[in-house]
């Protein structure tokens, strides 16, 4: 008998199987993940959790007998009152006595299991990207990357290139005519034979001399010389990093109802999550505005309440000011996402349009405008809002503006995906 402690063995033996399973059920899991998020609060939007998928794609069919029809005998324990010939009402389907048909999960329609936070987010944010992340800036402190760069004569033992070393050694030995092991062995044999027979003393003397010379040569020319040794050389090269800044502009004025604010915040929560997860070098600037605008931190942006009138141009001015001060357009990819209910002070529209066309849009790679509407708006709301009309005028074929409307929570994710979907080459051309 032997006791073995396996507790310290690496765990996660099933990880490979799990990955295969999730890959297999990918489409269904993705859908389930997206549905799951619409019901969550903003805080746990990035948490993993349980999802339920239909068992279609991950079905494991077997040849088995049907659970209905035909004649069946069941032997059951615990008879109390029955005697031969008694009749019993058929129990309702799926329960009661004698239903032992399905053994291993037969007839399951849905499959529930838990996803980790990582898996959840990966699936959630799959194939999204910032459009046209073009300007690449070699940042001084960019992450160095090690790259193979030929061979060198010095280095650490772990980097020694055996094949290269042995190749050098071989060519040196050939060039300097180092005697081979076989040659010396043959000489020794010959000497032994001559000594035995004593027939040809001259040849014996010559052979001995030859042997001495060969042995000397072997000693002088080493098998491996320090000259032969080569090391793999690694060079560090800075990796170009694209840096980007995302401006989040949110209207928090009095005209925004709770519902609209919720929609806008959800949108930004998704955006924030997506940027933080996908891009290492993305700065996020939060600007909220009423009749005046201010830059705030994440906490304030998402959770504090304030109210007032609506002057959109203040936010754009603030953005322009920050751009001027902190983000040189030459070095940064600039993005903006604006959420608003579409109201604006009538006098401000002209200024907004002017600011956009002259100061903001020329610098932006992409400008997403999200208009949030009330849930139960009647047909009256079909009329475009002030801001929508203003932006529509600004929006030319070359302009980087994308405009979408959202009325309901369930629309947030599809719209978000539409705005940040990976565009393939065909679509761009």
């Amino acid at each position: 008998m032997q006791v073995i402690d396996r507790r310290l063995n690496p765990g996660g033996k099933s990880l490979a199987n799990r990955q295969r399973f999730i890959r297999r059920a990918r489409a269904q899991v993705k859908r389930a993940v997206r549905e799951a998020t619409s019901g969550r609060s903003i805080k746990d939007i990035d948490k993993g959790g349980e999802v339920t998928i239909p068992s279609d794609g991950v079905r494991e069919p077997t040849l088995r007998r049907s659970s209905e029809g035909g004649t069946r005998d069941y032997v059951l324990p615990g008879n109390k009152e029955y005697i031969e010939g008694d009749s019993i009402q058929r129990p309702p389907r799926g329960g009661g006595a004698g239903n032992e048909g399905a053994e291993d999960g037969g007839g399951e329609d849905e499959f529930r299991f838990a996803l980790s936070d990582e898996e959840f987010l990966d699936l959630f944010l799959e194939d999204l990207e910032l459009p046209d992340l073009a300007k690449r800036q070699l940042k001084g402190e960019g992450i160095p990357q090690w790259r193979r760069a030929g061979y060198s004569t010095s280095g650490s033992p772990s980097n020694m290139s055996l094949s290269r070393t042995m190749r050098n050694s071989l060519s040196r030995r050939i060039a300097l005519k180092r005697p081979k092991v076989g040659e010396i062995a043959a000489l020794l044999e010959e000497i032994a034979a001559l000594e035995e027979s004593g027939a040809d003393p001259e040849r014996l003397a010559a052979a001995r001399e030859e042997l001495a010379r060969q042995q000397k040569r072997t000693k002088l020319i080493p098998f491996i010389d320090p000259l032969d040794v080569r090391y793999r050389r690694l060079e560090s090269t800075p990796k170009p990093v694209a840096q980007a800044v995302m401006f989040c502009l949110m209207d928090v004025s009095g005209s925004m109802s709770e519902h609209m604010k919720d929609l806008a915040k959800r949108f930004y929560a998704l955006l924030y999550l997506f940027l933080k997860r996908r891009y290492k070098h993305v700065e996020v600037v939060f600007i909220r505005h009423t009749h005046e605008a201010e830059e705030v931190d994440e906490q304030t942006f998402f959770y504090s309440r304030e109210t007032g009138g609506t002057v959109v141009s203040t936010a754009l001015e603030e953005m322009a000011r920050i751009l001027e001060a902190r983000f040189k357009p030459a070095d940064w990819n600039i993005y903006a996402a604006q959420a608003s209910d579409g109201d604006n002070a009538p006098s401000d529209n002209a200024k907004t349009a002017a600011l956009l066309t002259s100061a903001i849009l020329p610098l932006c790679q992409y400008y997403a405008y999200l208009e949030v509407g009330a849930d139960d708006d009647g047909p009256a709301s079909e009329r475009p809002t002030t801001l929508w009309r203003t932006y529509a005028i600004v929006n030319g074929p070359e302009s980087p503006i994308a405009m979408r409307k959202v009325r309901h929570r369930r629309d947030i994710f599809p719209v978000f995906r539409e705005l940040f979907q990976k565009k393939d080459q065909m679509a761009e051309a």
Partner: protein
Amino acid sequence: MSLKTAPPKIIDPKLLYTGGDWNFETINKVYAAIEEIGRGELNLDIYRNQIEVITAEQMLDAYSSGGMPLFYKHWSFGKHFARDEAMYRKGYTGLAYEIVINSDPCVVYIMEENTITMQTLVIAHAGFGHNHFFKNNYCFKQWTDASGILDYLDFAKAYIAQCEDRYGQTAVERVIDSAHALQSHGVHRFPRKRMPDLRSEQKRAEERRAHGERIFNDLWRTVPTKKARTRDKAEEERRRALLGLPEENILYFLEKTAPRLQGWQREILRIVRNVAQYFYPQRMTKMMNEGCATFVHHRIMTRLHEQGKIDDGAFLEFLHSHTGVVFQPTFDDRRYSGINPYALGFAMMQDIERIVLSPTDEDREWMPDIAGAGDPYNVLKDCWANYRDESFVSQYLSPRLIRSLGLFNLRDDEEEAELNVTHIHNERGYREVRRALSRHYDVARRDPDIQIVDVDLTGDRRLILHHRVLDGVLLEEADTDHVLQHLADLWGYDVLLLEMDEAEDVVMNEHTAKPRATFG
């Protein structure tokens, strides 16, 4: 009571351990004590034990691959793992106390969070009970190679990983999917005929010719015959014989005959089929195997207590979990989910012991061979070696046990409006109840009887299968179509499955499938 007045605790030197904690030293002590009883008193014949301590996490891992320590990779194991994990995390199910592997040495997993009493129970149960059964039962002897299985799985895992590298995960996955779907029909149920060697073949050919010469009569040549049809018939017979048809091992047939598979695909079918074959005896002997292990652990724990090696607290803890394991809810209980193999197995073993030692007149009449034979362990060891669930029940389920379990037979006939109680635990019913229960354990009846009956390799190559319908129960419609699709993909040509009522030679149902995308 204050602490000061508590009497000083005297630890009996005979005790193997006190309290609940365990360490490797106590495990060794406990094992030695168990071995003394297991080998010395019960005369068990076991493989060398290899006890491995694992965590709950690792137990979950082991679950998903049929308990084996290593297995090839496939998404279905990931699915089982995800389900087990979800169930476990929510607290719907606990984990098994142990997993034991039919290998030589016999690998027994024990979980770290169990108390020492539980570890003792587990070692007695798995390391001696199951181990003895694996080593001695004829089903395992015939169908499994305990010393080779771990090496084979190692090979299988490496081979499939290699295939994935070479042909891509999706291609390999498709083959395994299809093979898994047919896994239940990838076992040999009978030892196969040995291939005759050339010499005996020649001898047979000579005998045949001699026989032909002996009965030669030129007159037969002049008798008119229905020429065409007989030739056809003979041709068909020959064709079937060449392919070894009919064949019930579908995976075997595909591996050897499917026209379009490549070598590595055949090897994967072979791996899946060998694994299925390895697990086949476990399905045939589930109840006996658990009964044997439960009987052994019960006996060993009781003896340990009698010898004063474990204290009353430990023994009560053991009894608590033992009774939990052998609990049999009655049919009208909400917890009822079939007959508990531990309960029935244990009850039958105990019953046999009783019959051997102190039989009643009834026992003498029903089981004259063993009634009063006097040596229960020998009788039991004979049972463990030479029976499987089905034959064990039909031989040894005593009327007394039928009465005490209150077994009765309920017939569910589609044609009738109500269920019918056909037999109960009385004089007229014993035999019938016993027969019905024995049938319930008959693996050959539980799995549908499906055979490949014909294929014309020179014609359209359509594969024809028959399902011999038993008691009018057809195949599960949706699943069968899926499986047939897999079969058609592997075979590469059309597949036809007829559900036949053999007695009346009527086709009751028909399934067909065309290959979607062929392999190779």
